[in-house]
């Protein structure tokens, strides 16, 4: 049933130095809470993305620890202040140990 989670990230292509802009991220994932039961009454084991990390040029700038209370296909937005051009690395960490990664370039120009 489950397909490989695909991240979708929106980062502006070009920003001015000092500009504070919003980054929006979304990833397809069922975020199985571990609270639900299947038709036989057995608890469906938990399988969620428990951590989201945003790094810029290798330095972590924002982190979110997600609990099972986060909705399926989790959305996360946050802000970043432009200083220099570079690359974002967004990482989603799954309960099963896998990482889903998205890289997005940012150009800072006046």
């Amino acid at each position, binding site marked *: 049933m489950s397909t490989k989670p695909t991240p979708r990230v929106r980062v502006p292509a070009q920003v001015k130095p000092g500009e504070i802009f919003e980054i929006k991220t979304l990833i397809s994932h*069922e975020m199985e*809470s571990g609270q639900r039961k299947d038709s036989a009454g057995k608890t469906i084991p938990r399988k969620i993305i428990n951590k989201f990390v945003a790094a810029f040029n290798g330095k972590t700038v924002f982190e979110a620890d997600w609990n*099972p*209370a*986060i*909705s399926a296909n989790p959305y996360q937005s*946050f802000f970043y202040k432009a200083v220099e051009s570079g690359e974002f690395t967004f990482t989603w960490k799954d309960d099963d140990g896998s990482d889903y990664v998205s890289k997005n370039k940012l150009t800072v120009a006046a």
Partner: protein
Amino acid sequence: MVWNSVETTRREALALASIFGFAALLAPKMSFADEQAVAAEIKKLYGDKKTESGKIKLDVPEIAENGLVVPVNVEVESPMTEADYVKAVHVFADGNPLPGIVSYKFTPACGKASASTRMRLAQTQNIICIAEMSNGNLHMAKANVKVTIGGCGG
């Protein structure tokens, strides 16, 4: 919707929801977190430290029709400089099976201590938000969300 990953039809989902709703009235209570559980979580993080009000803008809908997807936005007033910034923000709920919702770690590079996500709420309950500043001060905010259809079970 393309994002729907659970393979049930709307009709089945509604039927299940009504069964679960009815069962919830009869069956012994499902275990939910409560105010004490949230207080215990906060104590685990920060001990008995005093919290102040203000500085936090906790934006949640007053009424959530669908408890499966409830938008939650937190914004903390701060200059976000190396000397004075918001270190962490924790969001809890006092009526879900587990009290924790999300914990954020901010850095001065963020420019603004604001983040949005979407959460599941099992029933009408309070959302409690606690922000830790770089100088160690704690701020707290609380909001009530009325949930029409709970986001748990069915």
